[in-house]
């Protein structure tokens, strides 16, 4: 997994963030994340899936088979209420931390 480049838990947060805009299949999530950050999935798009399964087990997201835009059967992931709450918690934590880091960086 791309943990070398990311703070732990970042991938989970990114997935939740992507799904906040609506249900999406794995390929779509990978594309979205790729659009925003070059390197997160550089090791391989496949490393997305263990994270998806983990989030699903924690009941932060659900998965359902559906039709994709070009009529393929694909598994769509969607945020649950608990997932939305978790996203808020993580975003909050992330913002506080990045704020702290920014302040530390500025002060030196």
């Amino acid at each position, binding site marked *: 997994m791309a943990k070398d480049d990311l703070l732990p838990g970042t991938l989970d947060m990114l997935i939740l963030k992507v799904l906040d805009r609506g249900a999406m299949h794995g390929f779509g999530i990978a594309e979205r994340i790729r659009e925003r950050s070059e390197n997160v999935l550089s090791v*391989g798009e*496949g490393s997305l899936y263990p994270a998806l399964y983990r989030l699903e087990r924690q009941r932060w997201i659900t998965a359902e088979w559906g039709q994709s835009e070009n009529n393929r059967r694909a598994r769509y992931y969607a945020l649950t209420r608990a997932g939305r709450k978790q996203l808020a918690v993580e975003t909050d934590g992330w913002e506080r931390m990045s704020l702290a880091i920014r302040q530390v960086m500025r002060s030196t």
Partner: protein
Amino acid sequence: MSPWRALGNRLRALLQKARLDADMDEEMRTHIEMRAQRNLDAGMDPEEARYAARRQFGPIESIQDACRGERGVGWIEDFLHDVRHGARRLGKDRGFTAVSVLTLALGIGAVVAIFAAADDLLFRPLPYRAPDRLFRLWERDPTRPETARSEVSADDFMAWKAGGSSFEGMAAYYEGRAVLHDGERADELHVQGVTPGFFPMLGIGAFHGRTFAPDDGPAPGTSAPVIISFRLWRSWFGGDPDAVGRAVRLDSATATIIGVTPPGFRFGDRDVDLWLPLHLRPSKSRDLNAVGRLKRGVGRAEAEAQLSLMVQPWMATVEPLRDSFTRSVKGSLLVLLGAVGLLLGAACANAASLLLARNRARRSEMAMRLALGASRGRLVRQLLTESLLLAMCAGALGVALGRYALYALVALAPRALTRSADVAIDGRVVLFAVAVSAATALLFGAVPAAVSARADVAPELARNSRGGGPRAGSLRAWLIAGEVAVSLILLTGGSLLFRSLVKLQEVDSGLMPRHLLAFHFRVPSPDKVNLFDLSRERIAVLPGVRAASATSFLPFDGPPAAARVEIEGRPAPAPGEEPVAAVRTVMPRYFGTIGIPIRQGRDFTAADNGADAPMRFVVNEAFVRKYLPGQEPLGRRIRTSMARTNPLGEIIGVVGDVKEGSMRQEPVPTVYYVYAHMSYGQMTLVVRTEGDPMAILALVRRVVHDLDPGLPVADARAMDAILGETYARERFSALLMAGFSILSLLVAAVGVYGVLACSVQERTREIGVRVAVGADGRRIVELVLGDTLRLVLPGLLAGLGGALSLSRLLSSLLFKTGAWDPASFAIAAGTLLVVALVAAASPAGRAARLDPTAALRLE
């Protein structure tokens, strides 16, 4: 997440596994196809687009593994997968599976059988309350080592019981026989007479009725209380609860059954079916067994010192109860346990070496899976699961084999073992077998698994599965050397024990055991002693009987009486230096019947056997050698201290010596009384027959029954069998050790064959080249045999070292065979070498017949 929900998830995931896996597969395939489509749209050609999509996705196998892990089935699912996969593989590879399972099953079966035999004696806690505080108590005279474990006199016991403050309780007991008679049926039973504290001290209550109360006594005119075993209660009284309270006859006295012991209860001797109350009367003769329960926190040495003070100048020995039960067989059992451990080790080495060879053939599969992203740990787990499968199959087969082995083992076992131990395969033994199998799997599976999982990806994929792997190769050589070493150790042990057994069997016992029946019966009261004479006379004239007589103490069947001897005309010896002799009572014609030669003088006749006949004695040669050296024994007058009045009697005959107790022991000076002068209520009759002695038994029983239906014939055995029992322990060890060494030889042969066959196959090319450049068949055979020797010799050397240390352990079991017996070592090493060469013959032959052109075309 609550643990229950987590568990629920896991279970659901496990149950829905197939569907979930299919979903996961489809999802990822879709992803890759979408990516490929995107690549195609970006202008790649189709082939390239698909390839790039796969690369961008990453190692799919390890991702799927990770997903399964996240999904929450993890190891269970992996394990089930591995079990199915492994079972399929093993099913395909039948030869390998059969050989590994069989060799392992032999090892496990042997371990299980010996463990089952040893468990009850050596490992299982004794079935009494807090058994680690129970001890046997003995007396010993520190100046005479042969008294190391003397029984205890009633006087000393009572002193100990009164003053032994280290003990919570103490009980005395004796063992004997008594005839139980309920009006219809009479049988001679093994009995223990015990002081009232016996059962409470052990923590044993009655199954029915009660145990003895302190005032239960043979008060004159009242009926003695007795307790019967659960077994007797079922077999004799049909488990009738009303048996408690029933009046019976015990020998000539009346008795009342007051209780039944719990099922399986025994104290030492398993044959005991009846317990009597023992009331101690002051006595100095050391003839009681004593057992005590130490107080909590009191040490054995402390207790020993305390008891010793009370019996000076004698001393006390305090021995753990278990040791006192197992002393005679513990050595053999430990040696045999060690031997089966070694055998199982060899079987493991063999399985490991087979696995190494097999895994080498699978190197490309392993490399492929590593390349696809499977972790090495995962591969190791998979290989170990296969080993576990093999071991469990072997374990199941081993337990089945062990059951049969156990029948044979019990049949061979010395009575000292079967009498005191409950030998059976029960849940505990099966559990042990499962544990052994699992340990076995780790033992033989770990190294091959680790070696295989280390396989390098690139070189393995580049070349195919042929070619040398020096690492695994030398490892296999080590394993084979180990097998050879183990085999040599066991073979040496086996041949040492066997040679010793042969020497033991060659020993002249001093009597003629063939066609000799022995049995005994007891007469109910002293006024019936003429029954012995009557039965002897009637048996002697039966068809098929040559002669019949009787003795008070049959040789090789327990110790005789012993007494001080006084020789007329000798000054009184210093105290402690009086001549001592074994004393036996015999009936007329005893020596002729049992086959003891008369050296001088004559046998007892009917005329000697009268109460008013003059006192006369027969002595053995050992007596003359020791007490009358160089003198004329006939006509000398002696007396013994056997009875209250001991008139002097003339020696009328000198007879040959008989070994005393067992073949290992030397004859002791012996004095023979004629029956009329020293009568017993129990005599052993000896009957010399024309053919099979047991064939006459029915007739003999009829004779005795006709004389008195209340006289049960007991312990009828052929003298051959009685003699055999004296070296049963040696025969048991020797036969088992020989069996194990043959098994280990088999295992080593399989191992040597396997490695050589493999190396010949791998060197096909090299051998082909050699043949092509002119090496003839003989040269090639020499090459393979050279390999064999290189394989076997290090093992032989290592085994020699092991065998030397084992033989020292064995020395207590050996008879006139030195632990360094060179013949045994030579036999063992020679056998092993021959077997190794035989195992090598077929691979060598195959190598020699190799067609060079075909060999070179390979690859």
